[in-house]
């Protein structure tokens, strides 16, 4: 199980995967919006999306868990 975390503070702009999806390493899973920029957050490793820990529009801090993959 791997937690994919926000690497900086911002708002969750788009969640681009769904529960049960298979993701590959370096595939974007969530796009944050911070400092007026789109911040893609990619999976560190391959896996299946087990849980989406945030909703679109949520504010997240650096280090908050976004998605859990297995």
């Amino acid at each position, binding site marked *: 199980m791997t937690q994919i975390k926000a*690497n*900086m*503070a911002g708002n969750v702009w788009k969640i681009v995967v769904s529960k049960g999806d298979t993701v590959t390493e370096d595939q974007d899973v969530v796009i944050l919006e*911070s*400092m*007026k*920029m*789109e*911040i*893609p957050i990619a999976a560190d490793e391959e896996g299946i999306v087990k849980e989406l820990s945030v909703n679109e529009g949520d504010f997240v*801090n*650096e280090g908050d868990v976004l998605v859990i993959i297995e």
Partner: protein
Amino acid sequence: MSYVEQLTEKVDTIKKGGKEKYHKNNQERGKLFVRERLNLLFDKGLDIEDAFFANCMDDELPSDGVVTGIGEMNGQKVCVMANDSTVKAGSWGKRTVEKIIRIQETALKLELPMLYLVDSAGARITDQIEMFPGRRGAGRIFHNQIKLSGRVPQICLLFGPSAAGGAYIPAFCDIVIMVKGNASMYLGSPRMAEKVIGEKVTLEEMGGAKMHCAVSGCGDVLAKTEEEAIEFARNYLTYFPANFRSKPKKAAVPAQKAFHKTIKDIIPANQNTPFDMKELIDQIIDTNSFCEIKKLFAPEIITGLSRIEGGVVGIIASQPRQKGSVLFPDSADKAAKFIQLCDAFNIPLLFLMDVPGFMIGTKVESQGIIRHGAKMLASMSEATVPKISVIVRKAYGAGLYAMAGPAFEPDAVLALPTAQIAVMGPEAAVNAVYANKIASLEGEERQRFIKEKQEEYRDDIDVYRLASEMVVDQIVEPDQLRVELGKRFKAYESKNVEFTKRKHGVLPV
């Protein structure tokens, strides 16, 4: 036995290093014997060895656990010290320290690069009075490193531990190449941490190669094997002159490879959409000439050595693919050291800007982002090598300043047609200027107003307007950027300026 036979026998014994069981331990961990490492590092092995017989009256301590001497890397003479971990775990005795100090003094006299092949448990506590506190104790090694810094390149290859005081050897090098799984740096071991402060951690968490290369920033390059680390060091040194008095050698220009995309295709028109700056770098430098430094640390800024038309160029580039290329305390530190490294050894600098500015918020303010950012500005500003800044897309706020904006005496500020320079982006600016007005409007009227003001703002910061005001020196067709840079770096080769006269500035650390 004749005298000669006696000598040969002694030499053979010492050359073998420590006991067989320690050689075996090393093999099991993928570690090479110190003399094999030196054979791989140098073109034709170690040419000159000093104090080979150090501590030879003690059979247990061949060469006192360190090999020092001079060898050639791609034809360049360099000085080296290399710990032998088969001898008392590479620990430092009195003669070990003296040998290291002497080879550093040789590097200083001959103005040759200094390499440190570190694999050492630290001080031999039993010898502490002789090797720790005195004038020629271990402290002198660091004093010498600090004196050598900026005079000659200093490279650390970390193959094993560098513990406690020993951890300062990598800290004072220009670059630290760490071997994954085996290399570690820490002031206190996990065992000591548990005893003294009650913290329970693994060695990897405490000071492993991956942690240092990705999180602490004490490591620069993470290598999978010792061979890979050595190969990296050999290649890295080809970008450097032997010392600060000379310039890096030019290389032959290889045939440019073909690309599927043009630079125009790489850069999205929307300022907020990420792209991979490495694709752009690839197109403007000589094929396969990129030697990235600190790839895993603060990846929102890219730092690396390259060649353009055969000449060495240090690149500092925003990476919008990571954290929107916003500058953080770590990104500023990373850039500051890299700029100093290049400037010290006469390597021209290229800044590729697509930067929305420095990060804001309580987290970074409490980390001291202002003083960290100031370090980047200071080292960039003091650099007197040829400097070219290219505004690839946006250059907002202090981001413009940190990335060698017009006020910091770059030799040229070039802009691509996609460039936008402003205190802040259109969205943030309109919100700031018209906050009350926007609050008083509703629905469609509000949206229309915001859009209209943003358009006005965009026109105001239009790149042609900035070129007309001579903020930028040239607007370059993206696919002509390589040619333009080649011509300009060539033209600026004879630059010869002194930043200012003084003892030294006060670093905003």
